[in-house]
């Protein structure tokens, strides 16, 4: 799985961090998404898929 994020689209809702905290973080100043792991291990995949679904800005892209 390959993950990309679009910081321009991100609205800082933190839904991705709640879903998969090992893969996503937020910038301290403005809460914008930071990608920690663009190729997460298999045990994270369900959480990352969940993050992509709940992200309100549709700022998370997955290639499986």
């Amino acid at each position, binding site marked *: 799985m390959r993950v990309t994020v679009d910081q321009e689209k991100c*609205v*800082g809702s*933190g839904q991705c961090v*709640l879903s998969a905290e090992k893969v996503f973080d937020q910038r301290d100043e403005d*809460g*914008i998404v930071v990608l920690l792991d663009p190729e997460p291990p298999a045990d994270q995949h369900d959480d990352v898929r969940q993050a992509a679904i*709940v992200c*309100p*800005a549709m700022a998370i892209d997955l290639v499986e």
Partner: protein
Amino acid sequence: MDTSTELSSQERLQTRSDETVPAYPMDRAPRCPFDPAPELRSLDEGGPLNRVRLWDRSTPWLVTGYAEQRQLLADPRVSADTKNPGYPHPTPATRARREQARTFLSMDDPEHARMRRMVTGSFAIKRVEAMRPAIQQIVDNLIDQLLDGPRPVDLVQAFALPVPSLVICELLGVPYADHAFFQRNSSTLVNSGSSAEAGLEAQSNLVEYLNDLIGRKLASPADDLLSLLAAEQVATGALTQRELAVTSVLLLIAGHETTANMIALGTVALLEHPEQLADLRGTDDPAFVAGAVEELLRYLNITHFGRRRVALTDIPVGGHTIRAGEGIVLANEVGNRDQEVFPDPDRLDLHRDARRHVAFGFGPHQCLGQPLARVELQVAYRTLYRRIPDLRLAVALEDVRFKHDGLVYGVYELPVTW
């Protein structure tokens, strides 16, 4: 035939055709206070998009389908800008207020993103998690007072409203001593029956109050969000003091009206589902508590006046084409009862995975304060039923007054005892 008669007959014709379009919002069934209006749901059975008639006789689209709601709320061709003539205003008062002062709720990107990003950092997960001990302390203090006080007691005034009010006051740096003033004005703003004059007056009372407070923060800053924003935005000229005051009103009101209603209404729902309440009371698993909060958000969906938008271009959706300039109202409470997404949707089930709910909206305007709301609700529900295990209603459910006329749904008061 002169022009005036011609016009009025045309108007009459218009009115007649309007009468066939159902009026929105619709009433909930009195016996099912947690469920969306039956009429809304029967409309939804006919398809995810229907026309409805608003207070001003405009006939926007009503979107009830979960998939269609998410599609439209995330579509940049769908505008939240209240200056668009086709924007479906919820009430005369909200229309008047938005003409006078717009917040980022009523703006599109890039203006919206610029304004919203000023405050997003303060609601980031880590920042809010760091507030958890302070929130726990607030909740514990209020429960100490409850346990020492008389019974029965109104849980709204004694607990549900003070929890988020104290938290947002601490975050923003607003003196809690002023709570009677801002709660009174904010309840005018969220009542759908308020006149335009009353809405404008309440809004300007709050803007003036925050404008003064920001002035004082500029002169002598403290360690709070208003001081930070005053220094970063007003002192640098990025925003005027009044612009910041207008945004701050939104943070102050949104910070307590919604969460307070969730705490009180959630308590009613849990007391009516004792086996679910027992599971919540008995758990030591923070993940279960977090999941239970998501389910309560889905099931109760307290923002029941619809998210409001307007189409900027023609948009095909759900078998129809929404034309440029047409209003769109999205009924999240029906989307959250979509059985394709949430099997057996009318059942409150704290064990289900409800995280896809749209109670906070969707798209760029999705609630900014949701991380804070989540932590407040997790702490409040968890602690209240633990520390007062035999909490119960002190009146019959039929005698609880639900906020059918509120822009935010909840209960006016909640007499409880133990």
